[in-house]
């Protein structure tokens, strides 16, 4: 999808006034936060697991080339193919090539954020292929012609009513209004697609170097039907998703479901190793893995390596009060919330997503729930630093910072300024607060400004105590 992160402010304001969105977001926020907290509380080892997971990811990243080679060898031994894509364009070309070679007409897809990242659907549809998203949430937003607004609950912004409307329009009536009936309707429509599919595309939660397997974790079973019934299975994954062994994947599994949906486990954990064997009765005839770099090796080099630990659980956005207020679409690209505010500028360019690192109070709630302890606020601040260095921040802000520094490094001047400000503000106050203040409208549009007492603390202290 085309990046629209430059419109963050207007999209955020629009979202705040969208009653349906606010209704849907309120419900989601309470559900995700409460369930995760309960899981974390019920597992005494939870904090120890987070620390271990962080350390293991760091170890993997430190030896990434080795584990990728080990993984590649094992995939080949199992009869699969590994493809390497430096960027989105290469990844699309590789997948398109495979689809064209097998003359694919229908392509089913399990949830894959990497496929969103590389704009895969558009490319396949452009070449006349039918692309069907099979995760219920992804299916809903595909019908709505919208991008996902959450990495694990892509249709979290939709109310049941809106889903009813979409299904009625797409499937014909009668209009269903119960969740059970809506789910059942999608089940029937999508079943037929799985069996017709030529190619099934899924993501990969973990790539196991030991066995050359891809692992996906789902609740619906759509990913399994997608990859079992199509003639060709293509896994799309970022290069950072490799883990050494099945036991290592287990460490992350113990954190993933609890952090993501607040469950002990998701319903299905599937380990896929190569294509159908000679004696198998089902399964794909070809098995491909497309490993996508798309900015990841660059992150490995600098201040942002920590971000590569991300296991895409979505806990950061579930706990982010900004995300909770504006929803995922405001962020304008594939990855929303705190993790998206780090990834989007790094993948799509600092200047294309100026607001994302800035629209954050640095309250730290995201980092406090991250299962791999990514210091998200620090990374966001580091991005602000880069924006400042590259003069991407507003001119007025840079001027203000310069002036502030000039004054604040001269205590006498600073205190005189405070003294004057306090006197002026006191004159403007009525009944303890100021309702309108020119030059500070962004504050007073929303709230009153308390009136100062008339003298600064330092003045009064010196008057009373001398020093």
């Amino acid at each position: 999808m085309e990046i629209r992160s430059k419109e963050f402010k207007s999209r955020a304001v629009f979202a705040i006034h969208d009653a349906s969105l606010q209704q849907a977001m309120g419900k989601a926020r309470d559900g995700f936060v409460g369930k995760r907290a309960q899981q974390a509380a019920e597992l005494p080892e939870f904090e120890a697991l987070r620390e271990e997971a962080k350390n293991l990811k760091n170890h993997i990243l430190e030896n990434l080339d080795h584990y990728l080679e080990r993984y590649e060898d094992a995939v080949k031994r199992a009869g699969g193919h590994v493809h390497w894509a430096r960027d989105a364009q290469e990844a699309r070309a590789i997948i398109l090539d495979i689809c064209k070679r097998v003359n694919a007409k229908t392509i089913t897809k399990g949830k894959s954020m990497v496929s969103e990242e590389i704009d895969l659907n558009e490319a396949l549809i452009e070449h006349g292929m039918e692309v069907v998203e099979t995760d219920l949430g992804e299916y809903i937003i595909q019908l709505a012609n919208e991008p996902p607004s959450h990495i694990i609950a892509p249709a979290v912004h939709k109310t049941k009513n809106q889903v009813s409307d979409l299904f009625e329009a797409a499937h014909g009536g009668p209009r269903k209004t119960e969740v059970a009936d809506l789910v059942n309707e999608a089940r029937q429509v999508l079943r037929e697609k799985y069996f017709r599919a030529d190619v099934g595309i899924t993501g990969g939660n973990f790539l196991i170097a030991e066995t050359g397997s891809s692992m996906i974790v789902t609740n619906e079973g759509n990913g399994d039907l997608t990859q079992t019934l199509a003639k060709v299975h293509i896994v799309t994954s970022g290069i950072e998703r490799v883990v050494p062994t099945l036991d290592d994947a287990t460490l992350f599994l113990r954190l993933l479901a609890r952090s993501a949906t607040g469950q002990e486990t998701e319903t299905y954990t599937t380990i896929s190793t190569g294509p159908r064997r000679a004696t198998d009765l089902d399964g794909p005839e070809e098995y491909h893995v497309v490993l996508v770099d798309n900015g990841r090796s660059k992150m490995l080099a600098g201040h942002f390596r920590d971000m590569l630990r991300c296991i895409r659980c979505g806990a950061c956005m579930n706990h982010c009060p900004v995300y909770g207020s504006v929803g995922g679409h405001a962020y304008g690209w594939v990855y929303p919330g705190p993790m998206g505010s780090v990834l989007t500028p790094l993948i799509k360019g600092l200047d294309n997503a100026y607001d994302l690192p800035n629209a954050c109070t640095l309250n730290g709630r995201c980092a406090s729930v991250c299962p791999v302890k990514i210091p998200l606020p620090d990374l966001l601040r580091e991005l602000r630093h880069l924006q400042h260095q590259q003069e991407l921040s507003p001119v007025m802000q840079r001027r203000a910072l310069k002036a502030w520094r000039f004054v604040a490094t001269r205590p006498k001047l600073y205190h005189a300024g405070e003294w004057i400000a306090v006197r002026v503000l006191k004159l403007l106050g009525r009944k303890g607060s100021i309702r309108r203040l020119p030059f500070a409208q962004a504050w007073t549009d929303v709230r009153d400004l308390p009136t100062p007492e008339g003298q600064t603390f330092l003045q009064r202290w010196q008057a009373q105590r001398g020093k």
Partner: protein
Amino acid sequence: MTQSTGKRPRVGLFATCLMNMFRPNVGFAAAKLLEDAGCIVEVPDTQTCCGQPGYNSGDFDSARALARQVIAAFEQYDYVVGPSGSCMATIRHDYPVMFEDDPDWLPRAKALAAKSFELLSFLHDELGATPAGTRHLATATYHDSCSGLRGLGIKGQPRELLAGVAGLKLKEMQDAEVCCGFGGTFCVKYPEISEKMVEDKIHNIIESGADTVLGGDLGCLMNIAGRLRRIQSPVRVFHTAEVLAGMANGPGIGGHSQESR
């Protein structure tokens, strides 16, 4: 503890920008609490700002310039204490990071960080103080400021200290740990989002049934109080230090002298 050696610790009081301008009463309350607990309190006039506005805006150079000034002004003291989790987290956590590649300033930054504390956690954890004899008739709810809570682990200390205040009843609100939408310059850069967040906070405050909001950071408290005033809510807002020191008899933050008790 320094006290047990018989020597009274010399504390440099960090006068945060917002306290200095908008709520000097908090500074005097902090000084009283520290002195009652046996400290000698001094306020160096070479201090200005901790540098956080620059740091969080990505202007690391300016932040370092301010940090050097703070280090120079305060390194003479046994402790640096300020009535703000936010400013003190900057000194404790961010200063050593800012000077990571500066061998001259790094040891000084680390040394200062190690003896810098947020007021309430300092009273509770370092001094074992139990302010007594104060009375404040109110039903209060506590807003956990993010930097204090997640940066410095301040959660139980203010509540335990407040338990010693006669007449004060604490009533927890829903989502006490969720950001109020202040976020320094965030609130003026993204006013609509900030408004939505403070609105959620106000809703939880009012739902709690409390008549008073307490907290440890003036940024958050001014944001919350300003919004409460705007919607003409009678809920009063104080810094915890004011209540603990028995100096919360005047109007609350943003309130006025005629407001009813």
